[in-house]
């Protein structure tokens, strides 16, 4: 059986890794983009983003001061033995990770109304930034996989979950989703983005699928549909930091869930910022 300590430590290390390091596919995508970029201002912004990632990794600094809201995705093997309180251990580990990284202390104090109005100020403890409700999914085997994603505020302003009348056409669904993202690019500020899309039956499910797309996507392995969405967003010519050039989106991650008999698909779209998806995962197996 796994121990609570191992689960806590895994969640803690995921938070720190997600907030301070670029993945291999991100490094490859940025290096390729810099080589191709002809707009000198856009290239400057891309070079600064890469320089930032290098310093963050070397010194253990956060990539971005908006260290984000932790979102935890847990895949539980059918044969894995879990200790009592294992979900609490994930919360504890996330809080420890936020304190160590350190995360930005941005949790709002007070009762429901006071929190909305932000009238009682903020907690000084970054560990008070609670994770969003966890997604737990059953899988085969004897492993527990904990993935942590850190979702920044800028993309949340620009994200959307809405219905699309699909007309039995993938092209229709994705063109509409891409047009939502394209319309937001000029105001995002933190381009180049990565477009995350979830397609499901309900708003909750579409959002969860969008998060799963962020958890699994790889910038070096893009499907034809993902490339099409990226091309539509790049056609805006907004470019890195809004400076123009050919690279507004580094790539697209799409996840499609079970669907229902209907003329409508619920689509969740999030233009992730230039450091996102900030994610890390740990796989645990009983010793």
């Amino acid at each position, binding site marked *: 059986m796994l121990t609570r300590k191992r689960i806590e430590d895994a969640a803690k290390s995921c938070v720190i890794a997600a907030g*301070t390091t670029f993945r291999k596919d991100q490094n490859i995508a940025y290096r390729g983009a810099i080589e191709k970029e002809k*707009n*000198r*201002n856009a*290239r*400057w*912004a891309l*070079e*600064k*983003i890469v*320089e*930032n*990632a290098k*310093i*963050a990794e070397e*010194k253990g*600094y*956060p*990539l*971005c*001061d*908006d*260290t984000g809201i932790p979102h935890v995705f847990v895949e539980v093997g059918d044969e894995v033995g879990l200790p009592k309180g294992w979900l609490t251990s994930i919360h504890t580990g996330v809080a420890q990770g936020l304190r160590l*990284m*350190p*995360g*930005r*202390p*941005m949790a709002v104090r007070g009762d429901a109304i006071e929190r909305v109005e932000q009238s009682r*100020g*903020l907690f*000084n403890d*970054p560990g008070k930034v609670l994770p969003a409700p966890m997604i737990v999914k059953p899988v085969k085997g004897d492993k527990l996989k904990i993935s942590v994603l850190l979702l920044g505020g*800028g993309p949340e*302003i620009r994200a959307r979950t809405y219905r699309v009348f699909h007309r039995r056409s993938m092209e229709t669904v994705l063109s509409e989703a891409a047009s939502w993202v394209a*319309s937001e690019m*000029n*105001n*995002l*500020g*933190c381009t180049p983005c990565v477009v995350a899309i979830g397609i499901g039956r309900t708003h909750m499910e579409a959002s969860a699928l969008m998060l799963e797309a962020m958890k699994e996507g790889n910038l070096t392995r893009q499907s034809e549909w993902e490339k099409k969405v990226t091309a539509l967003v790049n056609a*805006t*010519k*907004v470019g*890195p*930091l*809004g*400076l*123009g050039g050919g690279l507004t989106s580094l790539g697209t991650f799409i996840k499609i869930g079970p669907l229902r008999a209907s003329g409508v698909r619920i689509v969740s779209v999030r233009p992730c*910022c*230039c*450091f996102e998806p900030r994610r890390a995962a740990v796989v645990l197996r009983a010793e």
Partner: protein
Amino acid sequence: MKRLSGKKGWAGEKIVKLVTPIDDAEIRKLKVGDRIEIEGVIYCGRDAVLPKLVAYLQRNEIQKLNVNLKGAVIFHTAVSIAGIGPTTSNKVEIEGSIPALSAGGVKVHLGKGALSQKTMEELQRYNSVFAITPPVTALFTDKIITKRVVAFKQEGMEALYEVRVKGLPAIIAIAHGKSIFGSGGEKGTKHVDKKTY
């Protein structure tokens, strides 16, 4: 302001060094697309405190805050243990504060995102500029020498901070009625022929 003829950026471009406080003559020399590095004391604030700062200016009470806005740089950022990084400058409270703060002496507003045509005109009126920088917090952390709260401490990370920096990188996005942002934005920014800079 000093133009560092020998210093080159990563892309081989010249970098203009701006030392605070910055005077009007220095601002007049700046062009859209200029790479800059800021040195000296800057102020950091965003949605929560910039409207408050404007209210003090409008009541002619800014001296009560022990803040000197003449020739100042205001970076649209929170300041926390996680570091600093630009928030979107076209949020209502931030963009809405730019004209009054420019009138009050602020020369460089530093953030990210496009601004409206109206704000561009107000910047031009007061000979102030808007610079942008990527949210490169780790790189900024390396450039911070000191930081301290100067006003509105109750706002926590959104308080008004005074931060001493060395070599904070940015690019001039709006100056003298011209913008680096292309046409087609919701904010109605003016298209600038990129061949001109």
